[in-house]
């Protein structure tokens, strides 16, 4: 049995349902990310787990115990907020000690835990500072230490990196993941940043309009998206219009060129059906077919963006347009806009999109 189970969770605000029949099983020590655009319901699900919102229906159980009717202060859940939410009237050490004092722990234990937590986030030298004397990154690390000090069953992170600048975000997310691994704490991380989710999660729940569109490991989510939404939201994606020429043998036509794909991937489409294909930029390259990329299409360069080590090219293939990157080669200048080129790809990298 999973450590944290969410079954048939539903949440409505008046006539508007923001979470529809949400189900998820999380193992102990797992790091799960809720990924989706604004308004997809990811924060609402997190707030229901924390106890700040009451589900309209459904069950949330932690360690086999249904917690839906427990108040937030009875759930033993640690939470880190986007806005840090450090108590302005308390020092760093007092903030970290707050939960332990509320739990009426002995002073010696409180002092030891505060020291341990501040060492964990490498801020023990700032114990006497007030929150306004810290940078955003430092404040969020203190918020993390404060949430972990009470040894919660589950750690909830509500877009904790959104208010930080790019460099700090990367270092802090790695720090969060390292601490989570060290403590083995079950964690739910809410983000709208796909790179964040892909880089630190054991599994990702991609959410859209109150539903879990797909649940899977980052590799699976990126490479085998189950829906058009997941494919377009996670990573950059080229979509191509195609027609099924012969469903029985898996032949499809893209801009006049026949391509053979595994017919089982046609998802029941029949001969003559119009379908949408998706292909990642890294599965497309400039030049004639190779062993790895056996299909060649004729294209025309629309635009070329030189980004240093990488050159981003946009080319039209008749009706369709694809974007792809190529590495900078000092001895071979990039093609010019308007130039006719060959674009190659592998049929196995083409995804037939569902709804």
């Amino acid at each position, binding site marked *: 049995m999973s450590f944290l189970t969410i079954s048939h969770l539903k949440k409505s605000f008046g006539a508007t349902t923001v979470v529809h029949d949400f189900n998820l099983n999380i193992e102990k020590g797992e790091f799960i990310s809720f990924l989706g655009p604004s308004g997809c319901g990811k924060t609402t699900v997190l707030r229901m787990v924390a106890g700040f919102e009451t589900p309209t229906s459904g069950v949330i159980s932690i360690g086999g115990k249904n917690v839906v009717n427990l108040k937030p202060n009875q759930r033993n859940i640690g939470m880190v907020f986007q*806005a840090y939410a450090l108590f302005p009237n308390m020092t760093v050490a007092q903030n970290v000690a707050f*939960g332990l004092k*509320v739990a009426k722990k002995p002073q010696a234990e409180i002092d030891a835990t505060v020291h341990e937590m501040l060492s964990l986030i490498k801020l023990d030298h700032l114990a006497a500072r007030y929150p306004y004397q810290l940078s955003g990154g430092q404040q969020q690390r203190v918020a993390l230490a404060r949430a972990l000090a009470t040894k919660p069953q589950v750690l909830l992170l509500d877009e904790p990196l959104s208010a930080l600048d790019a460099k700090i975000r990367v270092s802090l997310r790695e720090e969060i993941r390292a601490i989570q691994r060290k403590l083995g704490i079950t964690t739910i991380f809410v983000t709208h940043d796909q790179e964040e989710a892909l880089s630190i999660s054991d599994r990702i729940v991609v959410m859209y309009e109150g539903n879990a569109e797909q649940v899977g490991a980052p590799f699976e989510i990126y490479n085998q998206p189950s829906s058009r939404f997941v494919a377009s939201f996670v990573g950059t994606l080229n979509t191509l219009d195609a027609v099924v020429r012969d469903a029985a043998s898996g032949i499809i036509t893209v801009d006049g060129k026949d391509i053979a794909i595994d017919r089982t991937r046609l998802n029941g489409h029949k001969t003559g059906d119009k379908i949408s294909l998706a292909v990642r930029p890294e599965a497309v390259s400039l030049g004639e077919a190779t062993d790895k990329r056996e299909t060649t299409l004729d294209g025309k360069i629309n635009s070329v963006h030189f980004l240093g080590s990488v050159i981003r090219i946009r080319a039209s293939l008749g009706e369709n347009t694809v974007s792809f990157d190529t590495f900078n080669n000092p001895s071979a200048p990039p093609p010019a806009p308007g130039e006719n080129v060959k674009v190659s790809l592998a049929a196995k990298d083409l995804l037939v999109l569902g709804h």
Partner: protein
Amino acid sequence: MKTNRIWSWLALAFGIIYFVVPLLGTLEFSLRMRRGAYSLDAYWVILSDPRFQQTFTYSIVMAIVTIIIGIVLVVPTAYWVRLRLPSWRPVLEFITLLPLVIPAIVVVFGYIRLYNTASILPLTGSAMGTNILLAFGYTMLALPYMYRAVDTGLGSIDIRTLTEAAESLGASRVTIMAKIILPNVLVAVLSGAFLTFAIVIGEFTMAALLNRPAFGPFLQLIGANRAYEPAALAVIAFAITWICMGLIQVVTRFNKSLAATKR
């Protein structure tokens, strides 16, 4: 442009004359008790009057009680409305404005009718009961000022997130109120408290009609029977009010400089 500035200066000069001349006149008159020379005789007479000490002490005690009732009533209410019932804020603002439009004399007659010795709750039947009634009356009079000060203070912090952060750490509502909310709106509460203090010290209608020995009725009594002492008392009353206003400025500036440091 230049004409506009002249009018601005004229308006300012008129305002200063309108407010300052009567005060200077009162101050000057209060110093003329001794014939032919300026002296503080009127002040000594007032300050050595046992009734002054008695009424002033009574009003200070009542002001402190009023401030405590105001804080206990207003801080949790304003906090709860901001946190859980934001749509009720206009209703609460309207209610807290009522003391400004309903004259104190109407309120006190209502109290006397409701809490007289023949009623279910005969508060006016004893001195302590009447003191309690007066304290609640003062709380009502100070409500517009106390509520606005506290509400503005609450608006300057993210009470929702702070509350949720404390709840996730296991804190109860009482702990959150005492350890998180109150310390973070202390400056606003102090502003409200000083305003309440100034109002209670000078209040006449309620104290006189409930027959309590407060400073306001003493001020009136002296004014009706003496010449120089009422002027001295008026100056003392103004000084107390101004000290309160000055303290509000001090705590507000302290808060602003703290906020600037935070940025």
